[in-house]
């Protein structure tokens, strides 16, 4: 009972191939417009790729290769999609919206409503059962939409940003519900929140521009990110270059020192990355000659509160942003402000270096 997919849709610059084990949950991460929703659309049968094939367990979802053009309709796929918009049926009340899935797949009206009540209760929206969708707030509608997708009890659940629009109390509640539900079920969940990936997914895929750029078990991807996007999600700074004995050599020729995993045998010249947390970065105003060997001239773009620290975001070149977490006092002392040119200094002991 696995799921396999290969699909390409050149009109949206989309080409992906992935598979899912039994009761595995996969998180899809990636920037806006990367193709996450497109992927779910292709799997659920709302979008028709130009070529590719997909199977879910014994069932063929589509085979579009050369001569063979088999396509099974969305309702025959055993998938249920929570789309990015809630799209509750405006003419049905909340209860009947949630009961729609069970009812469509053969349950009696009473059974379906029973199931619907159960799921509404799970997402803490049972009190809204008799409302029409137009009478719900954004977050309430989102919760109902989640309940509706869950109530369909599909073989493969597809969730597109299920936590969007939820308040800070509801999101953890829903995360708990999903954790329980997804435990013994195949699911693909699109999210912009790394917590969802940590809590719900066994594996993550990072997509950019319609391609998979990184893939692996959640912890591994988020602790040893290879793409800037994944590093950003994990809250790590990332510097790319080629691996050497000391650390990595950046494209502009500077050596950036760090620690490797001792048992990896490095192939010199192999592409690699160095990752380090913002808390390992210090900020200096002038040139420094201290023990930390790694330093960058950067331009501050932004100062943000971050817990009890201040996060200093800065750009070190055209498309690379680095962050440093420092105390508010230090920030005030240094008189930091966006636009300032400062130096980020990183202790090499806190830098992990690994192949990209």
């Amino acid at each position: 009972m696995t799921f396999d997919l290969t699909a390409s849709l050149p009109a949206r610059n989309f080409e992906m191939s992935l598979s899912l084990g039994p009761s595995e949950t996969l998180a899809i991460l990636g920037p806006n417009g990367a193709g996450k929703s497109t992927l779910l659309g292709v799997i659920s049968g709302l979008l028709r790729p130009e070529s590719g094939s997909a199977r879910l367990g014994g069932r063929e979802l589509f085979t579009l290769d050369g001569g063979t053009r088999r396509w099974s309709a969305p309702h025959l796929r055993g998938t249920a999609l929570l789309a990015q918009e809630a799209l509750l049926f405006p003419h049905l009340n909340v209860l009947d919206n949630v009961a729609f899935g069970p009812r469509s797949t053969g349950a009696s009206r009473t059974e379906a409503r029973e199931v619907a009540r159960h799921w509404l209760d799970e997402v803490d929206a049972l009190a809204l059962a008799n409302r029409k969708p137009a009478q719900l707030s954004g977050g309430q509608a989102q919760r109902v939409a989640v309940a509706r997708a869950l109530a369909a009890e599909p073989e493969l659940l597809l969730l597109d940003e299920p936590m969007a629009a939820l308040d800070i109390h509801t999101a953890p509640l829903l995360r708990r519900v999903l954790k329980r539900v997804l435990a013994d079920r195949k699911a693909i969940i699109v999210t912009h929140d790394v917590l969802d990936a940590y809590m719900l997914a066994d594996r993550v895929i990072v997509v950019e521009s319609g391609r998979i750029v990184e893939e692996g078990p959640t912890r591994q991807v988020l602790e040893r990110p290879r793409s800037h996007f994944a590093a950003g999600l994990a809250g790590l700074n990332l510097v790319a270059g080629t691996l050497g004995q000391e650390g990595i050599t950046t494209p502009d020729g500077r050596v950036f020192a760090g620690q490797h995993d001792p048992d990896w045998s490095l192939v010199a010249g192999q592409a690699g990355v160095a990752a380090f947390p913002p808390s390992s970065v210090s900020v200096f105003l002038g040139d420094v000659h201290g023990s930390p060997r790694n330093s960058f001239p950067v331009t501050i773009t932004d100062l943000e509160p971050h817990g009890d620290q201040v996060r200093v975001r800065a750009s070190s070149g055209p498309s690379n942003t680095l962050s440093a977490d420092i105390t508010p006092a230090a920030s005030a002392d240094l008189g930091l402000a966006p636009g300032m040119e400062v130096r980020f200094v990183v202790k090499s002991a806190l830098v992990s270096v690994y192949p990209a």
Partner: protein
Amino acid sequence: MNRRSGTGYTGVPSWVYVIAAAGSLFILLPLVAMVAKVNWPQFIPLITSESSLTALGLSLRTSAASTALCVVLGVPLALVLARQPFPGQRLLRAFVLLPLVLPPVVGGIALLYTFGRQGLLGKSLEVAGIQIAFSTTAVVLAQTFVALPFLVVSLEGALRTAGSKYDAVAATLGARPTTVLRRVTLPLVLPGLASGAVLSFARSLGEFGATLTFAGSLQGVTRTLPLEIYLQRETDADAAVALSLLLVAVAVAVVGLSYGRRRSSAPVKEQL
């Protein structure tokens, strides 16, 4: 300024009301002029005469039947025209509209050529023992022929405007196309379907030329109210006008009721 609290935005420019009033007058004035001409003492016996009542009953029954037939045939047609593009769709759409353009009398002739004794299908039907001409069935067919485009066109417009987002969602929840149609597509376009059905009913109720040509005019069998009115007019135009008022009253009642019911259960309430 009679908006109630909590309602959404309904801004209509004020000049729109002025033109709308002019438009209403354009339709209402002739009706008023008609009412003004009615010879009231003569009115009651006229509309309660046996022939009028028979004709009215026949009109109502046949119009109801043809509206049902229009819905049955028209909803699929509108779906096919509104949803998936296929080669020849534009041509089909144009053809479906033709009964609108055809002078009804010619439509009746075309129906005769088809279902009449010597017609395309009529010969086979005759062999099967089915005779359509001069029967109430013929009236229903004639009315359906002229009224079908109304349903198709207004429903197609509504389907296109509604789009197919919700249909897609329903399908991903496991609903078969038929279920989607019944539980999502049609409820969502209910206003359009209602408009279409009302138009069809009204057109059937007023249908005259095709019926006369195709079905004939025999009291109780094929002489609907418009045919009765037409005959009345031969002897007394004012009597015909008076009788038309009966038709108008019936239409107002039916249309008012059906629209009323639809509005009170109107499902789609706007969120801001």
